[in-house]
């Protein structure tokens, strides 16, 4: 925040042309890796993120197995070339923390108790980072879990809101994340009205926080619709493929 950067202009338009409450363009694809049990891909702004799920499968090492439910493990990881300055492939403290909070956001969505003594391993790979990778990572991971056929209480949609140049804005991009006043990432299950991830950094009055939080929830709801579309598109494609095959 050493240099003055103008994030929202006089007309209320952000650096990438969006209005304060507007999401970035989002592209979702489901089932794109052949080895994983479930997989999905998201582009949100310039974020490009892959998620893959293996499991339920045998736990290694075995002593980690839980008697009454599946062990959910999560690795959020950034490719060395995903950011401006090359990132060492070894996990950073930031990646360790995000792996934990992402796992805690997704865990309540899965019926883990149906798969005791197994592990469900979730891998999120950020191929390009553009602000908001943790929430985009949850959005895409949720689709990968669904693609793996895991029974879920709800899809988890995630989105950040925050404050930049005095405006409460939705879905912060890279520069808004770095130069803005505050960032509030949220993960939400709309049909359960339940928040699984909530973090904040920056400075907000309680009133501003409430505004930003409500806007983030609104963003989650919009993303939730996109998630459902993406799953439908995948299953329509499968259905068509099966029908075509049957016709032959």
């Amino acid at each position, binding site marked *: 925040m*050493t240099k003055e950067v103008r994030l929202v202009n006089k007309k209320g338009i952000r650096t990438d042309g969006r209005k304060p409450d507007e999401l970035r363009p989002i592209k979702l694809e489901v089932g794109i890796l052949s080895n994983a049990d479930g997989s999905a891909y998201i582009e949100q702004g310039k974020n490009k993120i892959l998620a893959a799920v293996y499991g339920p499968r045998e736990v290694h090492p075995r002593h980690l197995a839980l008697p009454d439910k599946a062990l959910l493990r999560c690795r959020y990881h950034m490719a060395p070339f995903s950011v401006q300055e090359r990132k060492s492939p070894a996990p950073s*403290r*930031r990646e*360790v*923390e995000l*792996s*934990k*909070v992402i*796992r*805690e956001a997704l*865990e*309540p969505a899965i019926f883990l108790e149906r798969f005791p003594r197994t592990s469900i391993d979730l891998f999120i790979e950020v191929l390009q980072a553009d602000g908001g990778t943790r929430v985009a990572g949850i959005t895409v991971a949720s689709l990968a879990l669904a693609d793996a056929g895991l029974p879920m209480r709800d899809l988890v949609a995630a989105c950040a809101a925050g404050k930049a140049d005095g405006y409460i804005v939705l879905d912060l991009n890279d520069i808004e994340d770095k130069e803005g006043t505050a960032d*509030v990432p949220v993960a939400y*299950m709309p049909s*359960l*009205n*339940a*928040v*699984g*991830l*909530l*973090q*904040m*950094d*920056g*400075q*907000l*009055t*309680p009133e501003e*926080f*409430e505004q930003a*939080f*409500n806007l983030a*929830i609104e963003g989650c709801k919009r993303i939730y619709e996109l998630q459902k579309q993406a799953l439908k598109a995948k299953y329509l494609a499968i259905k068509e493929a099966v029908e075509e095959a049957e016709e032959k």
Partner: protein
Amino acid sequence: MTSSTISRIRQSQIAQLITSGKRLDGRGLMDYRPIQIETGIIEKAEGSARVRLGKTEVMVGIKIEIGEPFSDRPDEGVLTTNAEFVPLASPEFEAGPPGEDSVELARVVDRGIRESKAIDLEKLCIIPGKKVFIVFIDIYVLNHDGNLIDASALAALAALTNTKIFKYEVKDGEVEIKSGFEKLPLVNFPVAVTLADIGGRLVVDPWLDEEEVMNARLTISFDKDGKICAMQKGGSGTLSPQQIIEAVKIAKEKSEELRRLVVKEG
């Protein structure tokens, strides 16, 4: 911390009591455990404090060294926060590199200090782009009985209020240490308040047994002006939006109580 070290019976006892507004250790839902703060106990450190929060005990030591600034912040000192779960503090802690819980603890405490701009980092610049002060905040958990975040944030703040920096002179691009000390330029006083959802009700300052029962926790850090500077939801459960808004209100009030324990003109 995932292993249930307390019995199922005790767990349901804790939860049931809370739904009727009581806690197993006799506290009210909105009461902190007794807090004891000592500062300046490690003479070799530039700053230090020990906080006892019930049976939870955390020590923070501050060391100041001269090093290089980050290339994108050439005229600012560097803040680095580390937490060690030393194995004498709990049967669950193991020696070795920091696990995800201690990384999270360090990063949440760090975020409160950093985002509230508690330390005036520009005043810690010695020679722009070359030499700055590095402030090491080392959180040392000595006995773990729950709510490490609040205890650590409080100990860190107490240690920072107590931190001195050696005087120096720059001669021909070299730093010369002089005798005497100055106070660390501490300009804000962030305090963390953690609430847990147990059986649908919020309580502040969960102790270890409550942490094993809780659904989720939410930590909210407030700065001296009543602004939120950091938040962190933890635990494998969820919170409702209503609970979150309520938690903010409770935490604001509690943060002022806590801050008064460390800073006189809070």
